[in-house]
C-alpha cells in the first residue's frame, strides 16, 4: 500500500512531537536546530528518512527523492551501527571504525541524539493541565511513592525468596556451600589424577616384558 509508510511516518512524527512538547529542555535544543535538515540512510532494510527541524518539533519525510546537496548532513549507517549509536557509542569512534559515514555538519547528529534520547518528559505538568496543579502534584507524588514502594517490595521479596530457598528449605546450595563443594571436588579430582597415574605406572610395570633373568637361571 502506497499510503502505509506515509501513515507510519505521520504516526511517528505526531508521537515524537507530542513527546518533545512535554520536555522542558526541548524548546532550546529545537531553537538551535530549527531550519536544519538531516538525511538518514539505513542500508538494510533500505530506508531513507529526512528530518526537518522547526521551532516546535520535527517533520519526518521520505528521503528517497532528496538530493544530498539539499540537506545539511547525510548519515549512512547499518542497523548494528544505529543500535550502537543509540546505546551511547561516540560518533567519532564509530566514524573511525568505518561503521558510520557522515557528510556535512556532523554536530547535527550529536544534537539529534541529545534531543531524542535525553528526553525528560515532565508528566506532572501535563497532568496539571488536565487536573489542576494540586491534584496533579498529589497524584504524581502518589505514583512516585507507589513506584518507590514497588521497588523496595521487589528487593525485599527477592531477598526473602533467596533466604528461603538457600537457607531454610535448602532447595539449592548457597554460595559458601558451593565453594566448599568445589574445593572438595577439586581435591577429589587431584586424588583421582594421582590414583590414575599410579595405576598407569603399575599397569606399565605388569605389562612390561619380564626383566632379563640372571645368566645362571638361563642356563639351568
Amino acid at each position: 500500500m502506497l499510503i502505509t509508510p506515509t501513515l507510519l511516518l505521520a504516526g511517528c512524527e505526531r508521537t515524537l512531537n507530542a513527546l518533545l512538547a512535554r520536555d522542558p529542555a526541548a524548546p532550546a535544543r529545537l531553537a538551535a536546530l530549527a531550519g536544519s535538515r538531516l538525511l538518514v540512510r539505513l542500508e538494510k532494510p533500505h530506508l531513507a528518512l529526512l528530518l526537518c527541524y522547526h521551532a516546535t518539533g520535527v517533520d519526518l519525510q521520505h528521503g528517497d527523492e532528496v538530493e544530498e546537496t539539499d540537506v545539511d548532513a547525510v548519515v549512512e549507517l547499518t542497523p548494528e551501527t544505529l543500535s550502537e549509536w543509540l546505546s551511547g557509542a561516540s560518533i567519532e569512534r564509530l566514524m573511525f571504525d568505518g561503521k558510520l559515514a557522515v557528510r556535512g555538519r556532523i554536530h547535527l547528529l550529536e544534537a539529534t541524539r541529545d534531543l531524542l534520547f535525553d528526553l525528560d518528559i515532565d508528566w506532572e505538568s501535563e497532568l496539571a493541565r488536565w487536573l489542576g496543579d494540586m491534584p496533579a502534584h498529589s497524584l504524581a507524588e502518589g505514583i512516585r511513592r507507589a513506584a518507590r514502594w514497588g521497588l523496595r517490595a521487589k528487593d525485599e521479596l527477592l531477598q526473602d525468596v533467596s533466604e528461603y530457598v538457600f537457607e531454610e528449605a535448602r532447595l539449592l546450595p548457597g554460595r559458601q556451600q558451593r565453594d566448599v563443594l568445589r574445593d572438595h571436588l577439586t581435591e577429589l579430582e587431584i586424588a583421582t589424577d594421582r590414583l590414575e597415574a599410579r595405576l598407569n605406572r603399575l599397569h606399565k610395570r605388569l605389562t612390561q616384558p619380564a626383566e632379563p633373568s640372571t645368566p645362571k637361571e638361563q642356563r639351568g
Partner: protein
Amino acid sequence: MSPTEKRTTHFGYQEVPVDEKASRVADVFHSVAARYDVMNDLMSMGIHRVWKRLTIERAGVRPGHHVLDIAGGTGDLTLKFSRLVGPRGKVVLADINASMLRVGRDKLMDNGVGGNVEYVQANAECLPFPDNSFDCITIAFGLRNVTDKDAALRSMARVLKPGGRLLVLEFSKPNNPLLSKAYDEYSFRLLPKMGELVAGDGESYRYLAESIRMHPDQETLKGMMEAAGLERVEYTNLTGGIVALHRGIKL
C-alpha cells in the same frame, strides 16, 4: 457547439451559466467554511491528512523555496510548507473564497505561523503573479470547483518557475468496480446526511459528491496538464483511485 452550450458549465449535475458557477461555488464554501476541517475529517475518516502529507512529500519543497497553495482553504498544506521553506522562503495561500481564506488565516495564526506566509484572494484562472515566480504550486481539492480548468492550469504553468512542480490533488475515478459502487453509495446517501447533521447544509455536500463525478478522470486530467504546457506528468492513485495526485514539471 452552439453558443448557448458554450455559455453553460456544470455545477454538480446541473448546467449553469458560466458566470454563475463561481458565485455558486462561493456560496457553497461560505456555507461550509466554519465546519470545513471537521467535515473533512469526518467524511474521509481522517485519510485526507495522509493524502495531503503525501502531496507535501512529493512536492520536494526546500528551504528558500517560493510555494503557492491555491484553493488552500483552511491552510493544511500551507502550515507544513511554511516550516519547510523556512524564513528565507515564502508561501502564498490563495483562495477565491474570502470566508475560507479568513478561516485559514486564523488557523495558521493560532499555530504560530506568520512571517513567511502571505494571503491572497485570487481566481486560479488568472493568477495575479508575475511569470516564473514559484518553485512549487499545489492545488488540493480545488481544481474541480474552478469554472475553466484549462485556463487555471495554463495560469499555474505560467507562474511556475522553469523546473518547478505543479501538484494537483483531486478526487478521481476509483479503478475497482466494487469500490466504486460502495463509494457511490457512501457519497450520495451518507455524505449529504452527514453534511446536514454536522454542518447543517446537506445541499453543499450533495454538490461535493456530484462535482466529484463531473471531474475529469486520471488520464483526462493528465492530458489537460500536458496541454497546459507541463511535462513529465505522472499521477498516483490513492485509496484505490478515490483520489489521484498528479504531478507535472515545467521545463
